[in-house]
């Protein structure tokens, strides 16, 4: 085994281990921190696959944005030191069975499938190519999804403000 292969298995074990801890630990703040480590591990996997741009986006958006947002909302709504209630025994068993069944089924399918064109063609990711194709109006251009996503982000921003805004008592009367 070469260094790259060993590195891949270390990254994979890191992602899965921290992911399991994130969904099973009973302190909610620790859960957020384990999620943070799992997301960093996924960014490392992207670096290993030599897709540096996606890895950078992953770190900026997930680690720098979403996890910070989640931690903020934990501080706003929870006593972060206290433990959450234990999930019901029966529910845990049933979901464990369902998850193990799904995992076995899917991995059987994956390992039996022959991915025919295991090409050895080199894959190099050029950020300039991404930018050109993202804003291209010709065939295989992504200008329309780009614009739709920008409208979606605007709508999500306004929607989040409208939902979370505090309505004063006097305004509430006029609204009703």
């Amino acid at each position, binding site marked *: 085994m070469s260094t790259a292969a060993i590195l891949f298995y270390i990254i994979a074990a890191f992602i899965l281990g921290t992911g399991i801890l994130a*969904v099973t630990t009973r302190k909610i703040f620790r859960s*957020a921190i384990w999620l943070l480590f799992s997301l960093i591990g996924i960014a490392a996997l992207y670096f290993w696959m030599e897709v540096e741009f996606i890895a950078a986006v992953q770190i900026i*958006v997930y680690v720098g944005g979403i996890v910070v947002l989640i931690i903020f909302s934990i501080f706003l709504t929870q006593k972060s030191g206290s433990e959450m209630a234990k999930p019901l025994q029966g529910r845990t068993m049933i979901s464990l069975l369902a998850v193990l069944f799904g995992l076995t089924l899917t991995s059987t399918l994956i390992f039996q499938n022959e991915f025919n064109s295991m090409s050895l063609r080199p894959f190099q990711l050029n950020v300039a190519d991404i930018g050109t194709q993202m804003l291209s109006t010709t065939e295989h251009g992504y200008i329309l999804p780009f614009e739709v996503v920008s409208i979606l982000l605007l709508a999500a921003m306004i929607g989040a403000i409208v939902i979370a805004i505090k309505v004063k008592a006097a305004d509430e009367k006029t609204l009703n």
Partner: protein
Amino acid sequence: MNEIPLTHILFVSTALFFIGMFGLFTRRNMITMLMSIELILNSVNINFVAFNKYLFPEKLDGIFFAIFIITIAAAEAAVAIAIIINLYRSHHSIDVEDAGEMKF
């Protein structure tokens, strides 16, 4: 680099997907359910990038799908957290069992 077959990367993303599913099934706290959804979306992203790199190295479509999924996940997290904060104001709890008014 090329000695790792595609199936191993796919197995990692499958396992991550089902870890997220397990969290979604067992947790009753809205913030932890949101974290599980983030894990699921990330596992899908790994699949897109790996397929792009291993099977279609001359194209970029998997990369674009990954970028758009990350964008939509960010928007979804922002709206979900706004809803959670609003729910906490009215119910003083973010447990899904306590918010059953619209169930029936």
